[in-house]
């Protein structure tokens, strides 16, 4: 039992803190604090800046350009980055596709895609959900049928985040309609500029456009774009879901948001007194902080177990349910503090730069956290199976 940082870790912490202090653009900092959505060019520029520092693909092994940090260093890095209100800036390519290609990709796929992901030359979106396949993801119907040396892909993907910005999509497709439905699924890489792809925007209840529906009609995809074997897609997806546990919990982001909430509660007034002096507000902030502590130390324990060689398991489901609960609580506290300052609908201009101008957007979108990436109910099914073994249905 030891969670103290050694002298070298502390030196590293100082270095990271100083760098973010000096290099985080004020505009990105403002948007991160207020919850305003970042635009694509802002994210790409920021990622390239991190990459130039060697700090973008912090979770990747050194052979693929990662910094080779210990879990402690990565933890310190995340905390310092979030504390500086620097955006997480990570893409689906870095978090999700990279690790998949390292584990399942061909040497050619790795050599081609990994450097491009790292340099932000490609923007990847994730094509998993479909109109009829949400929590029952394995029932997905988008079909990839062999046609000479290619697949012909037909179907539709739903809730595809940033598909309108993406140059590529990694996609779960059905390559076999017989047998167990999970076994007929394959993992396919599709360039978004291929003929037959249409992206339609979905405006979400925060009033923003980040989600899309993607329609695929006779899209011709070469077989070299298949990752792993045909029928291996479900295993790859499961690998991916359990892979990035630290980002699932979102501890660093939550800590930064909580610090911002304290600052906001000290600034906002009720009955002429700082809101932070209100007994109920103090209890709410305290309760949220304690939940966050429970999350942080659960996250530590899972990281420690994994570092000791334990195979990743249902802990990621626990971290997701705990993490999203904390995230949602904090975004709710933000609108509590903002009160009528959070009322105006998507105001832009000078008001749109205010501390609370996007609080309601952030709260509204936070409700998606228990829906996407495996809904709360699905995560609990996974945990119930763990508890009950074969007894859980």
């Amino acid at each position, binding site marked *: 039992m030891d969670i103290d940082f050694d002298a070298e870790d502390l030196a590293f912490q100082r270095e990271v803190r100083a760098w973010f202090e000096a290099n985080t653009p004020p505009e990105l900092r403002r948007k991160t604090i207020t919850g305003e959505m970042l635009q694509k060019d802002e994210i790409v520029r920021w990622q390239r800046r991190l990459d130039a520092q060697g700090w973008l693909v912090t979770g990747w092994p050194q052979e693929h350009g990662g910094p080779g940090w210990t879990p402690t260093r990565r933890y310190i890095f995340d905390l310092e980055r979030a504390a500086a209100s620097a955006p997480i800036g990570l893409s689906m390519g870095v978090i999700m596709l990279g690790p998949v290609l390292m584990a399942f990709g061909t040497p050619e796929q790795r050599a081609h895609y990994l450097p491009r992901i790292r340099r932000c030359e490609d923007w990847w979106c994730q094509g998993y959900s479909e109109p009829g396949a949400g929590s029952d993801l394995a029932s997905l119907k988008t079909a990839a049928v062999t046609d000479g040396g290619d697949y012909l892909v037909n179907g539709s993907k739903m809730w595809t985040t940033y598909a309108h910005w993406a140059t590529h999509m990694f996609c779960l497709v059905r390559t076999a309609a017989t047998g167990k439905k999970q076994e007929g699924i394959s993992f396919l890489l599709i360039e978004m500029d291929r003929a037959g792809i249409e992206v339609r925007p979905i405006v979400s209840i925060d009033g923003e456009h980040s989600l899309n529906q993607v329609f695929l009609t006779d899209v011709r995809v070469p077989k070299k774009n298949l990752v792993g074997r045909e029928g291996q897609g479900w295993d790859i997806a499961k690998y991916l879901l359990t892979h990035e546990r630290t980002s699932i919990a979102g501890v660093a982001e939550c800590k930064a948001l909580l610090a911002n909430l304290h600052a906001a509660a000290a600034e906002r007034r*009720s009955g002429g007194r700082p809101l932070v002096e*209100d007994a*109920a507000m103090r209890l709410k902030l305290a309760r949220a902080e304690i939940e966050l502590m429970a999350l942080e130390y659960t996250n530590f324990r899972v990281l420690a177990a994994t570092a000791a060689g334990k195979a990743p398991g249902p802990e990621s489901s626990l971290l997701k349910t705990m993490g999203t609960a904390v995230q949602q609580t904090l975004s709710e506290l933000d609108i509590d503090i903002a*009160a009528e300052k959070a009322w105006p609908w998507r105001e832009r201009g000078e008001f749109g730069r205010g501390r609370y101008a996007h609080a309601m957007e952030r709260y*509204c979108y936070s409700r998606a956290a228990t829906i996407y990436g495996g809904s709360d109910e699905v995560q609990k099914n996974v945990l119930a199976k763990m508890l009950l073994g074969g007894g859980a249905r």
Partner: protein
Amino acid sequence: MCSPRCCSAAARAKANAMNFDLSEEQKMLRDAAQKFLRAEYGFDARNRIVASETGMSREHWRRFGEFGWLGVALPEAHGGFGGGMVETIQVAEPMGAALVVEPYLASAVLGAQAVARAGSPAQQAAWLPGLASGKLVLVLAHTEDDSGHQLAHVAARAAAERGGWVLSGRKSGVLGAPWADGFVVAARTAGAVHERRGISLFMVGAKTPGVQVAGYRVYDGSRAGDLLLDAVVLGRDALLGVEGEGLGLLEQLIDIGIVAACADALGAMGALLRKTVEYTGTRKQFDVPIASFQVIQHRLVDMFAAIEASRSLLLMAALHAEHPDAAARSRAASAAKAGIGERARFVAQQAVQLHGGVGMTEELDIGHYFRRLTLFCHLFGGSDHHLQRFAALRAAA
């Protein structure tokens, strides 16, 4: 001042102990509102109103007036229906269910009741008929940037000058402000910022020189705004009620506003439950409707129970709305706001959750109900504020 109808409803409920039935008139009011709004105020029509430049349908507002909904709790002598809180909630609930954005709460309840309760004969004659018919909009401007929901925190000032008043200050979060023909403004004529004494209410025409409205669209589709009062010169007759004694009326208005807002929220909660039951019964995953899963069934039941408890709290508060003991009235209102507020949040969040991705879309009405209920939770102060108010009033009793 008690509306006779409401008192009789309260008395009747007490006398018969267990009679919570609506009268024929009350039922007709409710049915008519439901029927009209379902036919003429559908989701698409409503969204066109929200997207329009003014964000309000004057046409619908006049129709509401014709049906008698806007004057439901106003005296018959001024074109009203002569009802009280029980009648008001018969109209407010269907309005919540239909996501109505016009200022029923802001004008027909808060603005009109201010004048009905404290207005001089001349003020009543000038405002009430127009408010009842839907010709006029009058809203309450009481909160300020630093006030939170402490009603006694009034920094705006009114000075007696040249036989009239000069008003200066800022008001924020004024419901319906961009639509208002007039404002009932809380300003201080004496005392320090927190003092209970020294608050007065003033009738301020929207076009009076020195009055500026910074309006905006609210997340629930309605409109609100900040009010800037820069040395606004008013006549002596602009004072509403007794000088320096405005807080009592303000508290009364907020209490009845809370009851009306709770009815609106209950309408939205009921609509969400209905739609969520329907959706989970048809949406199939794992080859079966998701409502066949016990976890979904229990969640729906939790929503149902939340709504039933809310209806009980609403009824309790409505029957106390004209209670002669102000503390009893305020405790009832705060109990309803705290109890229904928590449940509204739960029902709204669960409706989105059970709809999954589609519940997150602007295209579906679920998210619009979600936002309406989210705003309701903060309106007139959140649950914590009302728990504290409830506890403080109990301790004082």
